[in-house]
């Protein structure tokens, strides 16, 4: 259909038509989460000038080279190209599935247990607000001391039922993460000042010159930011906690460049990019889609295994702290959990397990999974209150 119309029109109109089609194509890619903008449309037309426009294969490859910017995009491009230029109807389906209709109607059901439902107000609000007060975060620690908040910080998270308090606690969790970030980044800045003269070596090297510093020896502390990797359990048994943890994780991920987040229940999903999405509603939708199938048991061992197999190589390094937020109720084999934790620990600097149940008075890590995990952890701490969550900072200081 495109060809017929263009053949009838003049060259100039053709060019205009093609430009319009290209604008639409770029928009189509953007709807499918490609990071492309108007500048790419112009480049795309330039690309068409460099390939044989009559060879669809060349056009596809050329545009792919220009418009795909990462592996996932590279892999999805051919389908999206087909769908748009050959109209196989896949576009429409895809858009609906990606939730552009869904967004308006509300959050996917699977996520409602974890996030404030729409009756409690616009889900975007807490996020938007935290974004605005980024400048206030210096006072976070002080704010934590305010009486109401102090009380909240000490309350077991599962006892918070009042919607207002819920929202407040969630905001606190987010701020806590940012305060943690601030303190740690200050420390890092101080430590990495340089380059400096290494006076001792300089003097020694210059003995031959009568001690005059002709050859200078410089010393530079390598810049090694810490890297946080969070694995958050969102299975049924963690329901009462995971909404707070999620805010905490979001706070870490959004304000800390070197952070990486994953959710798991029966399988593991990387959510760093979704959490960093600036549009909170879209972020929620993306998270919702990612956790489809949630609600079953927990396969911690299996989830760790997929983390080790797929992500560990690039996500972990000698300056990585892995935080596992989970109650340790595993429906999988304890032996698998132990084995995978062992693998994890070989690659990371520290493995910290935060377990909300640990704060309960009579809790002993009896769950078989937890018992198997214990020997392979650098730290096992409670996280049933916001206060306990804040104490995680100590783990970083010891790095």
């Amino acid at each position, binding site marked *: 259909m495109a060809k017929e119309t263009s053949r009838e029109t003049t060259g100039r109109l053709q060019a205009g038509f093609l430009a319009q089609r290209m604008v639409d194509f770029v928009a189509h890619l953007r709807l499918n989460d490609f990071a492309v903008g108007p500048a790419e449309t112009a480049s795309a037309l330039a*690309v068409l000038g460099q*390939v*044989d426009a009559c060879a669809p294969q060349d056009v596809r490859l050329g545009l792919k*080279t220009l418009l795909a910017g990462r*592996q996932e995009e590279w892999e999805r491009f051919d389908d999206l190209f087909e769908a748009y230029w050959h109209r196989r109807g896949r576009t429409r389906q895809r858009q609906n599935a990606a939730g552009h209709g869904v967004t308006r109607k509300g959050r996917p059901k699977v996520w409602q247990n974890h996030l404030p439902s729409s009756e409690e107000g616009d889900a975007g609000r807490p996020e938007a607000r935290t974004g605005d007060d980024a400048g206030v975060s210096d006072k976070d620690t002080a704010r934590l001391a305010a009486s109401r908040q102090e009380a909240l910080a000490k309350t077991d998270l599962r006892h918070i039922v009042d919607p207002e308090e819920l929202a407040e606690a969630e905001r606190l969790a987010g701020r806590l993460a940012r305060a943690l970030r601030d303190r740690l980044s200050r420390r890092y800045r101080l430590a990495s000042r340089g380059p400096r003269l290494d006076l001792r070596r300089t003097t020694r090297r210059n003995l031959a010159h009568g001690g005059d510093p002709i050859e200078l020896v410089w010393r530079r502390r390598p810049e*090694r*930011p810490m890297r946080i990797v969070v694995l958050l359990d969102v299975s049924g048994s963690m329901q009462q906690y995971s909404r707070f943890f999620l805010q905490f994780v979001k706070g870490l991920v959004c304000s800390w*460049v070197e952070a990486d987040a994953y959710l798991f229940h029966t399988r593991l999903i990387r959510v760093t990019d979704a959490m960093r999405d600036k549009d909170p509603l879209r972020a929620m939708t993306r998270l919702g889609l990612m956790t489809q199938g949630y609600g079953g048991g927990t396969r911690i061992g299996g989830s760790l295994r997929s983390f080790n197999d797929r992500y560990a190589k*690039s996500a972990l390094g000698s300056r990585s702290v892995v935080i596992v937020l989970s109650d340790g109720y595993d429906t999988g084999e304890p032996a698998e959990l132990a084995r995978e934790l062992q693998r994890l620990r070989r690659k990371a600097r520290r493995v910290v397990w935060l377990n909300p149940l640990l704060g309960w008075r009579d809790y002993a890590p009896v769950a078989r999974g937890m018992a198997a995990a214990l020997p392979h952890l650098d730290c096992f701490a409670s996280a049933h209150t916001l206060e306990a969550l804040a104490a995680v900072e100590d783990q970083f200081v010891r790095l």
Partner: protein
Amino acid sequence: MSKANHSTIEELQARLTGVGYIADEALVMALHLALRLGRPLLLEGEAGVGKTEVAKALARMLDARMIRLQCYEGLDANAAIYEWNYQRQLLAIKAHELDESADQTEERIFSERYLLRRPLLEAISQETPPVLLIDEIDRADEEFEAYLLEILSDFQVSVPELGTIRATSIPQVILTANGTRDLSDALRRRCLYAFVEFPEPKRELQILKARIPTVGDDLAAQVVRFIAGLRREDLEKKPGIAETLDWVAALVDLNVSALTDDPDALRSSLVCLLKTEADAKAVTPEVLARLADRAA
């Protein structure tokens, strides 16, 4: 641009083959556009798929110099762009301390004579455009990535003491990454992109024959099938093209003409392919026999 003197994609592919690089269609297209549009090309893919080799081949093809910047954690502007030659500066200060005013000394020591050009500055001050390979950009810190972005878009460097140094030639830039860290969208958008995968068996066979002409046809075909099978195994570090070439050289050296000939020789030659202890353990004699049988 004179360096893009190929008129069709087939011609480019032939020229690449001519310098010993056998590229697939997507990569040829990416190189074609990078040359024609003068844009940097970002190559991603697992270690060993031949990303760095692309830059070398391109330099050979264009008969251009290749300047390589190897990135690492903590790489900073001093190591990548320029540095002052402190020793010479200090010597100059001492030598002239009596007959020069402080201002004169300053002017003297912050001149091009005392400037050490690091790869990026070197690349933009060449008479003829070189190929600039920025290898493993994902190992460098994000700050450096942002800095690089500025250089790649303006092709000029500002040295506070000297002013702005403009490019005398615009290098053809190839960046490689293998997923140590996610790169910024800004950088990705500046570049054309190609994801390089392990070669199809057919292409790997071509590479093998081009690089090691002495290998017999039978052995080459078996090796390619064996490697394809091995890459499907659950390994920490899948063997790349360089490993395949090493291995074939070793097999030829051991007088192996078919993989099923001599299990012991085969076993001992695996050191060329398997680079971690876990991988060496994972390929048990049984697995090895299965792979060899299937390849034969």
